[in-house]
């Protein structure tokens, strides 16, 4: 119970701390808020096309029965670990794309509800890491850093470890 409450308290507490800092530093609080909120709006607009592309793809994937086939193929490995088969698509998409995994996450929430076991596990997996391949391609691409094999390998092992950990604590 206690631990769950920390999560619920974190957001309002963070707001109060930020506002105390802001009042002390005598900046124009409301102007800053409006400026930031505008950036947030622009950010939402900029991800809209990607979200439309990916959610449509995920829906088509689901309705055509392709997802079922993939889950059936991979199920033996995951049922051995007692990993719920509903989360398998998220596990595959998470390292590749943030928007793509958000698309899968929302379809999981829609089918099983965010407070179910599957919903909670998916939330934890989805919120606890960034898209590995995306980070490697932006950051290493920017400086033409070639030695990416190691980092992808290390990152995928870390990702699998963190998923097993999530399975254990969830």
């Amino acid at each position: 119970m206690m631990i769950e409450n920390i999560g619920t308290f974190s957001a309002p507490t963070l707001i109060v701390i930020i506002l105390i800092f802001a009042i002390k530093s005598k900046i124009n609080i409301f102007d800053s808020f409006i400026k930031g909120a505008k950036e947030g709006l622009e950010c939402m607009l900029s991800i809209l096309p990607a979200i439309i592309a990916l959610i449509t793809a995920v829906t088509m994937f689901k309705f055509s029965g392709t997802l079922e086939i993939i889950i059936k193929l991979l199920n033996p490995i995951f049922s051995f670990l007692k990993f719920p088969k509903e989360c398998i698509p998220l596990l595959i998409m998470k390292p590749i794309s943030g928007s793509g995994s958000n698309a899968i996450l929302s379809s999981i929430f829609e089918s099983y509800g965010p407070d179910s076991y599957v919903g909670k596990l998916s939330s934890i997996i989805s919120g606890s890491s960034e898209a590995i391949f995306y980070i490697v391609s932006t950051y290493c691409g920017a400086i033409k850093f070639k030695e990416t094999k190691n980092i992808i390998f290390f990152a995928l092992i870390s990702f699998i470890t963190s998923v097993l950990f999530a399975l254990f604590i969830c």
Partner: protein
Amino acid sequence: MIGKVWATMLIASFLCALINNKINELGNAILEGTDQAINIILMTSGAIIFWSGMMKIAQDSGFTGAISRLLFPILQVLFPNCAKKQNILNPICINLVSNIMGLSNAATPSGIKAMKEMKKEKLLSANTLVFLIMNMSCVQIAPTFLVALRKNFGSNKPYEILPKMWATSIIFLLTGILLIKIFKKNKIDRQ
């Protein structure tokens, strides 16, 4: 990368629908998918816009700066051969704090700057790997999108998963750093 995955998904869906005789469902899926995408954006926009505003206050008031000062000692342990190089540690700090506060807009430019500085000083390799792992495992105090999505799909306690999520992020980070320290130990100055 994502382009190929996306195209493969669409083509695979078409082939599968053809085999399973579900072409009609596939057509409906296009309409339903686009509809759902717009709904998700509408559902989560409010929270994201609010938090972007809040985080801008944090940035302007010096709150973000105060957190970076707290991070400094930890960074000196993680990047031992950058210890005295402010030009590298500063962008790393901004990048990490932006990630923690969920400001991915601010995180990417400073991250690229840190990578460039490391390259200039010929300190790539192990340092870079640690830095990339930190970015991948990003611990977020307020993961706005996730919480808003949970709330809008009917969660009673949208924030409930946060502590477990933070713990999982930290496990990701520790495993990554451990792997790098074990396997890249002798190769640090090769570049």
